[in-house]
């Protein structure tokens, strides 16, 4: 295919604004998939994704489209994840495209996350085609939304398409605009190979399969390749594209998008963002923008049953084959035994991994409260990174602690400015800026500690604005703050898995709330169990789980025995889900209690 007839594009949209549905319509219209074969939203193909209605893993598809000008075009639709946790992956997908559809809900208008992705797309010089979706809704205000796009983004909306992905309205027009407005790729077929890895997945027979966009040169079956950042050397066994089924080809040329297989056993060899080149005839410079995976959130994952440790290890290994941003290393907790410290891109990513471990691998897991990565400068000048509160050096040994801050962008109808400011202040946010993007909508920026965002900030934001607020944030650096380690003692013994790092001013309130929460979660045992929160040696809050005084059925005669046995079996099952810490049985939820306190 001539490069002039290739169009590489992606879709930028806020969650629920209809990205996946629009992708389905495009697939149908171009005949890539017959409508009867469509499982709703074909591009979201992980079970979890479909349940949550969000796209986590990227998918890409190669489409043929015969345009009104009579020419046949090759369209590569590159799907992007729709959650703030995955912004680096989004940036790499954008880098593989020349253009993007900017899908905005005609009733809801622009949201913070869309805006963040739009700016990212503009950074990559992408041609943006506004698509006003859901125009068939009674509350649709296409003209208002157009005006918003012009004012907020500064984008000309004269070429905007009014569409309804649900009914298929506008699909043809969108395809025509893609052909007309998005520039064809500009690469040099004769130059040494230079290709961008923008995603990968793991196939049990063929190893890790990277998805690539060829910038220059050709990627051929049988070639010897080199990954410029990881240094891995690979022999290509297969080259192909997704139609959406995998279709083998002889080569991928400059401007094209597809996949290759090279018996890659380690996903770390094919990190998203890396540059693929020819081993014998390499390109002089890799593509810019590569970034190793940087987890934002860490937590401990432990098997409830100690003997499941190896199963958990195997499961993490397998998941990592498909998810390079998951990192983990073994750790030992006094309370929980052997487990893993895992790093995630964000809380959603963490939740997804946990659910997959439980669902796909049948593991019964304990998860400790998430933590961010703190930077501690010790009195001897050494700087250490602490991703587990237990490991915080003693107060006497540290000079100061720094914690990661994010710049948060919140968009909200102006009536909710008050509650947002209150929430941000409560979360130690420092006000940055407020801007009216329309007469009724404002954009607020705050600098907030990441640790305050990762818990329930988003939920609180939604609930205090009737769901109208949208949030985007990016990490911007570390700041010194006054942090302390809050220890939790259960039955006089500190439980390492329950300790947390909190701001000094909040230590008392948190400690109190935490012990109250734990009192309600820890079932009564055969003895009184004191639960204490302490700063150093100083106990700042205490509750007691009173000893169990009655747990026996009074009557047990001929007709009661079966029922009784079943009750006891149930009771035993309940105990199985608890972790024995010292002589106390602590339920799984208790380790996440810190997340649920007000």
């Amino acid at each position: 295919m001539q490069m002039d007839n290739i169009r590489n594009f992606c879709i930028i949209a806020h969650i629920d604004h209809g990205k996946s549905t629009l992708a389905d319509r495009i697939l149908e219209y171009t005949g890539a998939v017959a409508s009867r074969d469509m499982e709703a939203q074909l591009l979201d193909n992980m079970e979890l994704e479909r349940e949550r209605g969000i796209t986590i893993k990227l998918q890409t598809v190669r489409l043929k489209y015969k345009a009104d000008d009579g020419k046949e075009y090759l369209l590569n639709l590159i799907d992007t994840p729709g959650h703030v946790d995955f912004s680096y992956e989004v940036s790499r997908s954008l880098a593989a495209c020349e253009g993007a559809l900017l899908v905005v809900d005609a009733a809801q208008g622009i949201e913070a996350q869309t805006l963040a992705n739009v700016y990212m797309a503009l950074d990559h010089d992408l041609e943006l085609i506004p698509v006003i979706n859901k125009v068939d809704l009674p509350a649709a205000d296409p003209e208002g939304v157009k005006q918003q796009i012009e004012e907020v983004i500064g984008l000309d909306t004269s070429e905007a398409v009014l569409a309804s992905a649900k009914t298929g309205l506008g699909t043809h027009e969108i395809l025509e605009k893609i052909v007309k407005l998005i520039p064809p790729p500009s690469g040099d077929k004769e130059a040494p190979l230079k290709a961008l890895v923008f995603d990968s997945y793991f196939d049990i027979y063929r190893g890790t399969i990277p998805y690539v966009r060829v910038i220059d040169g050709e990627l051929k079956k049988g070639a010897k390749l080199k990954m410029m950042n990881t240094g891995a050397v690979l022999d290509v066994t297969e080259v192909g594209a997704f139609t959406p089924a995998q279709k083998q080809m002889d080569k991928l040329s400059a401007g094209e998008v597809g996949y290759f297989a090279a018996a890659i056993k380690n996903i770390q060899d094919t990190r998203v963002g890396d540059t693929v080149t020819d081993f014998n005839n390499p390109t002089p410079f890799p593509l810019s923008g590569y970034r190793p995976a940087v987890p934002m959130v860490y937590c401990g994952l432990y098997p409830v049953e100690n003997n499941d440790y190896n199963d958990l290890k195997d499961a993490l290994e397998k998941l990592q084959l498909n998810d390079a941003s998951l990192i983990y290393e073994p750790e030992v907790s006094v309370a929980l035994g052997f487990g893993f410290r895992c790093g995630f891109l964000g809380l959603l990513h963490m939740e997804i991994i946990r659910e997959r471990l439980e669902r796909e691998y049948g593991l019964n897991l304990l998860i400790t409260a998430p933590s961010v990565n703190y930077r501690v400068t010790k009195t001897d000048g050494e700087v250490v990174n602490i991703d587990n509160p237990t490991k915080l050096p003693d107060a006497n040994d540290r000079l100061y602690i720094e914690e990661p801050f994010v710049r948060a962008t919140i968009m909200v109808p102006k009536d909710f400015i008050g509650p947002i400011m209150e929430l941000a202040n409560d979360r130690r946010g420092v006000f940055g800026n407020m801007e009216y993007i329309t007469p009724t909508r404002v954009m607020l920026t705050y600098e907030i500690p990441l640790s305050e965002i990762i818990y329930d900030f988003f939920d609180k934001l939604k609930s205090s604005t009737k769901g109208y607020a949208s949030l985007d944030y990016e990490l911007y650096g570390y700041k010194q703050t006054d942090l302390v380690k809050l220890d939790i003692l259960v039955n006089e013994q500190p439980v390492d898995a329950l300790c947390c790092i909190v701001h000094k001013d909040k230590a008392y309130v948190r400690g109190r709330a935490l012990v109250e929460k734990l009192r309600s979660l820890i079932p009564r045992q055969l003895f009184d169990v004191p639960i204490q929160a302490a700063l150093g040696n100083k106990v700042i809050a205490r509750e007691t789980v009173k000893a169990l005084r009655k747990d026996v059925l009074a009557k047990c005669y001929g007709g009661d025995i079966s029922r009784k046995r079943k009750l006891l079996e149930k009771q035993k099952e309940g105990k199985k889900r608890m972790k024995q810490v010292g002589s106390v049985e602590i339920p799984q939820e208790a380790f996440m209690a810190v997340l649920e306190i007000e």
Partner: protein
Amino acid sequence: MKKKAIQSLYVHIPFCIQKCNYCDFVSYPLKDCNELCAEYGPLLVKELVLYDREYDFSRLKTIYIGGGTPTIYPDLLSLIYYLPQPKSEFTVEANPGTVSYDQLRDMRQMGVNRISFGVQSFNDARLGQMGRLYCRKDVKDAVYMAKEAGFENISIDMMYGLPGQTSEEWEDELEQAIALKVPHISAYALTLASGTPWSEAVRRGELSVNDDLAGDMLMHTRQQLKNAGYNQYEISNFSFPGYECEHNINYWKRANYLGIGINASSCIDDYRFTNLQGREYADAINEGHKPVASSELLTVREMISETIFLILRTDRGLNLREFKAQFGVDIMEMFSSEIIRLKALGLLIEHNGYLQLTEKALPVANQVFCRFV
């Protein structure tokens, strides 16, 4: 095929004058079921005949006629006449408000040798609240009549942990029970069964019960009755030495028992089954079928669980040698970590070849039992 020996027979009489506010047993108001009542005795006898080919009743040790209220069942005496004679213990449950001297004397003469009165309380206000149709004086009269009629082995059932009941009130109840000088007392903590008027009232917040206090009352009952010469031979049962209820001990030993009548349950080795209710029960028998509503075949593992949690309810506990002989495994090996842990918690002891609950374990015995299921 060799017939299986039945050690105990339970006969359910599902008729009451009215249902008590806490009761979830299957029972029907007598006035609403004259037809079933008239037919009931012959049905029971026919049911027994259905089992005659499979089971051997010649070594039957105990019979227990329970309810409901057996003493309001008009054909009780003829029923007793048709039942096989047990070798050792024949109990009839009696309601203190509905027995007469003549009835007691006749039963005694026909071989009934143990009478169990559902007393529950000596407090007239409490009795009224529970929906029981007699007063304190009736209880004393009934026990007196039973003694006069020749019953030596008399038991009374008492209930504690009632809504609003204080420790003092319960101590007073026990004092009055002791004063009757009967050789056997059962003391049950109230169990709120769903669907009963009391459980509904608790749900609506109109009544409240205190489980912690009930646990304390259990320990207190043990002490107060011990001082009066009663031994706690099972979690809810107390007796003078030699007056333990053999029928109930058979349940806890997991001996074979057959239950006949509406909703009665049976257990023969690894087979448990429960009878139909109401008309369905009668129809099945009239058509010559066993009136079984549900049954289950237990695995060895389930039988082991049952054996352990049932026998641990008794003061003698589990005989380690017998257990090994029966199941071919050593319980101390099979549950070594559980037993070590329970011993460390002070809930279980090993004594003269028996595994027993400690005193401390009695009110929280499920914490022990659930380790073995």
